[in-house]
């Protein structure tokens, strides 16, 4: 432990704690800009400077460990002046178009400028007119607005291990750019959107498609369009944050209400499709597992995460046979809406406009990934909006989300089980699959459905499940940078002719799973992630049905339409395939 | 030579120091040492080197004169620099020895045993190697005209030999 003083207050913290961490622990605010709790300090902005006693040298609170006997002063006239000048300097390289900026009122630089009472800009603007890169269709790069805090580069390289974004140029010409200076969409980018979620300003953001959705909604009244919407598991525990609610607050029923007020004709829930996914993927797993002796590829790897799918196709194409062919819930729902529901409701699928609300930017890419995303004969999901875009639409509509009455989703694809809702958290897909696989393997029902060993924020989780004597070894990895370790062990075991270390692997590209997705409300930290995860499991705990195969509407859809999991029809609508892709298109 | 042991290295060092003390390096009594740092080369030291070599050969001195290179001695304004060590004359450093001065150097200094006007520059510091503080070993300090005592000694004895 280290004893020191911060603004004359005695503090004691563990060795290695930074001055910033120590100060925050004792409720002392130190202004900061480039720092982000998810990342190792990069120390780019120079705003968090503090003093140590009378030493003339200022220390950067973000990266300097608090040492025994230090006498830290976090604010005085000199520090305020220094910080203010640095902010003025940063503003001199930043465009003044806050009013039309995607980050207006959610911008960390704007907030800092307001806090420091910036009233004039003493230094002339030095802008560079850098072009916008929207080549991915999912996220947009506007380097002109970049303040070179380095978060996106560190997220992409260190957290995600994708290396799609890099610093190019030196000095004032430094810019964030796609690695290799190609278009972002032509390089390694997997569109996970973590860069956008971590960007403090409007330099990287989701491709905003709200206008297209509004246009479609305009036509509903005239009967030209039937607008159908689905919401993903992770959206419900995060959207409230954009309306001042605590992270993890479950606003599912208020979202349904809001979506109806926005003009959607039918409100379905992706959780239902998650249950469907479990039926298909669980069956696929059991089939491969029981046939293991005859060479079916194990481990089976989950494919609900489109960023992960993209990563695997680019970096681990040899593992494609191990991928589950089951589509993600978004795409299963899309296919069901334009086939099963369209027939039932006697609506021309060509006139259905299908919108998905997702915590994810990569889902915008997924909905046109390959021809199987058009399995209904039309584009199964027309537009994917992120949680942030939905919040924007609700605000545009002047809807007071918090005070809306609770409403329910529409049948038949609204009701869902606890297994469906936990899809939004790391380990959730695995747990949901195990709940159903147990029954498929043993023919019996589980007494205790919670597999807590695959929960938690640990980057790689392992568990052995005893299904009445049959041992199933599983691994769960989240945050792209953690995946390589897992796959390497699989590849090494295979090369050595050994048995696979795991039978079933769940992968989610974002830290904490979809609840930490790149399209979720800003300000996501581990604390926020834990609260969102809690929100999800709380709902699971009180659900009437907690296993996907118990969902009566799932039973119904198989009886009425899909025949049985893994049937020919199910394969045509609910399964996809993968191809090796080059990391760089050129 | 190959890898050496401690004893071999020490013996090797003694041998090299002996050579220097006897005033002969590679069997030659006269040394013309040209400053070939980047600064010297930029000022034309390579040409000076070639010219001195040519004149030395023309005057049939090749068997007595060893022309070799060294690094920058710090007299950058007066590059190229050339140090001449020969019996009968004090060792001196000449500055501003462009290729044009090579002939003068060979004719006047090496052959005529006169020092050149307007070219001599003082070695900037005493040589700490082989100085009194280190057991007074007769080291290369002698060749390099620095520590007052050692230079006097060498040039005197050299002069004595040269006058024979």
């Amino acid at each position, binding site marked *: 432990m280290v004893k020191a003083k911060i603004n004359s207050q005695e503090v004691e913290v563990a060795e290695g704690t930074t001055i910033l961490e120590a100060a925050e622990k004792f409720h002392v605010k130190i202004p900061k800009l480039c720092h982000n709790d998810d990342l190792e300090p990069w120390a780019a902005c120079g705003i968090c400077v503090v003093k140590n006693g009378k030493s003339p040298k200022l220390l950067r609170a973000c990266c300097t460990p608090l040492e025994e006997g230090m006498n830290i002063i976090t604010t005085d006239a000199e520090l305020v002046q220094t910080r203010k000048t640095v902010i003025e300097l940063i503003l001199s390289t930043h465009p003044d178009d806050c009013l039309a900026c995607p980050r207006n009122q959610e911008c960390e630089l704007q907030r800092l400028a307001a806090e420091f009472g910036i009233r004039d800009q003493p230094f002339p603007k030095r802008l560079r007119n850098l072009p916008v890169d929207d080549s991915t269709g999912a996220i947009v790069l506007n380097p002109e607005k970049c303040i070179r805090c380095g978060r996106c580069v560190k997220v992409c390289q260190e957290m995600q291990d994708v290396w799609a974004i890099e610093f190019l140029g030196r000095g004032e010409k430094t810019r964030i750019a796609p690695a290799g200076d190609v278009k972002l969409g032509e390089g390694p980018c997997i569109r996970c959107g973590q860069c956008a979620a971590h960007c403090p300003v409007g330099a990287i953001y989701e491709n905003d498609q709200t206008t297209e959705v509004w246009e479609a909604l305009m036509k509903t009244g005239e009967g030209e369009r039937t607008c159908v919407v689905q919401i993903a598991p992770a959206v419900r525990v995060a959207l409230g944050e954009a309306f001042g609610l605590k992270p993890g607050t479950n606003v599912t029923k208020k979202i349904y209400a809001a979506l109806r007020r926005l003009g959607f004709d039918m409100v379905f829930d992706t959780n239902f499709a998650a249950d469907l996914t479990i039926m298909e993927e669980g069956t696929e797993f059991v089939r491969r597992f029981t046939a293991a002796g005859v060479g079916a590829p194990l481990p089976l790897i989950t494919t609900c995460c489109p960023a992960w799918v993209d990563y695997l196709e680019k970096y681990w194409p040899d593992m494609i046979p191990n991928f589950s062919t089951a589509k993600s819930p978004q795409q299963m729902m899309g296919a069901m809406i334009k086939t099963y529901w369209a027939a039932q409701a006697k609506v021309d699928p060509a006139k259905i406009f299908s919108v998905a609300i997702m915590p994810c930017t990569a889902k915008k890419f997924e909905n046109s990934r390959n021809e199987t995303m058009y399995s209904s004969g039309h584009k199964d999901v027309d537009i994917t909006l992120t949680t942030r875009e939905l919040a924007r639409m609700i605000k545009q509509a002047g809807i007071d989300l918090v005070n809306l009455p609770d409403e329910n989703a529409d049948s038949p694809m609204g009701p869902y089980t606890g297994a469906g809702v936990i899809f939004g958290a790391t380990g959730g897909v695995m747990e949901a699959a195990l709940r159903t696989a147990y029954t498929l393997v043993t023919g019996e029902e589980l007494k205790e459905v919670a597999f807590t060993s695959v929960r938690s924020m640990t980057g790689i989780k392992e568990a052995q499940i005893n299904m009445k004597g049959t041992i199933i070894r599983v691994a769960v990895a989240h945050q792209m940078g953690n995946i390589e370790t897992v796959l390497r062990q699989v590849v090494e075991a295979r090369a050595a002719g050994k048995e696979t270390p795991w039978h079933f692997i769940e992968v989610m590209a974002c830290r904490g799973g979809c609840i930490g997705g790149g399209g979720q409300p800003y300000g996501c930290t581990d604390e926020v992630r834990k609260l969102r995860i809690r929100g999800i499991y709380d709902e699971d705990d009180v659900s009437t049905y907690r296993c996907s195969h118990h969902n009566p509407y799932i039973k119904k859809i198989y009886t009425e339409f899909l025949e049985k999991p893994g049937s020919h029809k199910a394969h045509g609508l609910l399964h996809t395939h993968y191809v090796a892709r080059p990391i760089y298109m050129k | 030579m190959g890898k050496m042991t401690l004893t071999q290295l020490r013996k090797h060092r003694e041998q*090299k120091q002996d050579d220097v003390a006897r005033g002969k390096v590679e069997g030659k009594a006269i040394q013309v040492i040209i400053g070939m740092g980047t600064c010297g080369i930029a000022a034309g030291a390579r040409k000076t080197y070639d010219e001195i070599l040519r004149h030395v050969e023309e005057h049939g001195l090749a068997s007595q004169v060893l022309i070799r290179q060294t690094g920058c001695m710090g007299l950058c304004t007066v590059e190229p620099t050339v140090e001449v060590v020969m019996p009968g004359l004090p060792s001196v450093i000449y500055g501003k020895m462009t290729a044009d001065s090579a002939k003068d150097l060979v004719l006047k200094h090496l052959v005529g045993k006169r020092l050149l006007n307007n070219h001599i520059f003082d070695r900037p510091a005493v040589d700490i190697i082989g100085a009194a503080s280190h057991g007074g070993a007769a080291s290369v300090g002698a060749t390099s005209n620095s520590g007052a005592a050692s230079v006097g000694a060498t040039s005197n004895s050299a002069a004595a030999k040269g006058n024979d």
Partner: protein
Amino acid sequence: MAYKNFILVCGGTGCESCRSEEIYKNLMMEAEIQGLKEEVQVVRTGCFGFCEKGPIVKVLPQESFYVEVKPEDAREIIAEQVVKGREVKRLLYDKGDGAAAAAAAAAAEGKADLRSYQKQYRIVLRNCGVIDPENIDEYIAREGYEALEKALFEMKSADVIAELKASGLRGRGGAGFPTGMKWEFTRAAPGTVKYVICNADEGDPGAYMDRATIEGDPHSVIEAMAICGYTVGATKGYVYIRAEYPLAIERLRIAIRQAEEYGLLGKDILGSGVDFDLEIRLGAGAFVCGEETALMRSLEGNRGMPVPKPPFPATSGLWKKPTVINNVETFANVPMVILRGSKWFTSIGTEKSPGTKVFALTGKINNSGLVEVPMGTTLREIIFDIGGGIRNNRKFKGVQTGGPSGGIIVEKDLDAPISYESLTALGSMMGSGGMIVMDEDDCVVDVSKFYMEFCVDESCGKCAPCRIGTNQMHSILDRMTKGSGEPSDLAKLEKIGQAMTKASLCMLGGSAANPTLSTIRHFREEYEEHIRDHKCRAGSCKTLLRFSIIPEKCIGCGLCAKRCPVQCIAGEKKVAHVIDQAKCIKCGECQKSCKFGAVVKS
């Protein structure tokens, strides 16, 4: 025919102004009168670098060093020294009394003998200009690799560290951190894989100490790094050197190969069981890669950007392993410290800054070059003695130490003895050793702009205060030199400068404002003149210059009009000419061409 004596008469500018030419002539005359033309050669030489005691006369082979010689002393020198072989004692710098005794006493105590008239004392450059850098035998003959022998066979690693700590050797890269402590931290750091790095990424404009050291004596660095490897327990070393130094790289390559052949690098050095390998890595010439954390990132193959310290390299450096990183000059000191001992080393220099410092002396100085002086030497001695004073007898204005990171030191501070602390106290810094002398024709605003431009180009772009601050300061300085400075500009420069100094991550940004801030401190009125009067008193900001013709003096010869490259001078023959200010490019050709002093610059 062989002369018995040679009388060298200093022909340096300083001595010449003190009648050295007369001394030379008198000596020639006396030699002739006294019939000694065949006995003695009188030679005119270059500057001796001891101008304060000039004129200087030196007699060889006796090495008699005469100071403050007057023309009338010629007769006595010839009569006494050449004829009778006796020194003229009253003219001797060291009157001869006990010089040898003093040297012996110093030697007996293990201290350095610093009694020479020469202001320079060469430890780092001991072999530069002496040995053939491409011949390891010449290095070996000059005590080369003796320190390594001593360390390997007579000292424990703790002894080496104790000796270094006692010597007080401090990092010569500029920051002055005690080398012994650096090594000790690395030795104590847990881990079996450790590294030794030599920072040869010299980047200051006008600095070339490291280049010259490696070009002239590569083995001194190699030997020191091997000693360091043994001491801290590292078996691998890297020399990070900028690719723009091809000759230094080549010589270092040759030296490493020779050392490997002799078994002085590689496995089981000299049978000691100690292994140490050395590799050269080339830097692409980014100034910021001289910053140690950026250098290591670059060595690892990453973008050369500084990262926060701590952790310090001693515990987590290259590839996160404990690493010693010292610059070339620091390493070159080490063999002598080990061999001569800390007592010897501390007898040179000052108490807190023992030893010497190498400077690259450039600018408006007569004897520009590489100098190595004991710490504690004054700037005046370096500039006016060793450097031989200001070129063309112009007036000294200031000296920039520490390159683009340092500040200007003015006349009144020239007598401060040089040390890390004193230069910092004067608002500059030791830096790596660039020393640029400026005279009255140098404009401080222009000089500040030059350094700021350098920092603009070399800022890595990571940290906001430096990346943006340097550019904003540069644009302000630029408009000042062009006559469009604004009244608030000085305050803005100071405001940005202070923020950069305080809030930058590394020393590049932290010191980038120094040249500007220090010149504002000393020459505020010049800045104000640029802003208020659009005037550059040094006459170096061309936009602010105005050439005009005084009609009374102009005879209308037309020469200036002929010389003018833009034809902006007009006038009838024999009638006063006029310069069209709108077209004038301020090249100054007209002024140079006018034989009547009719063209004036204002």
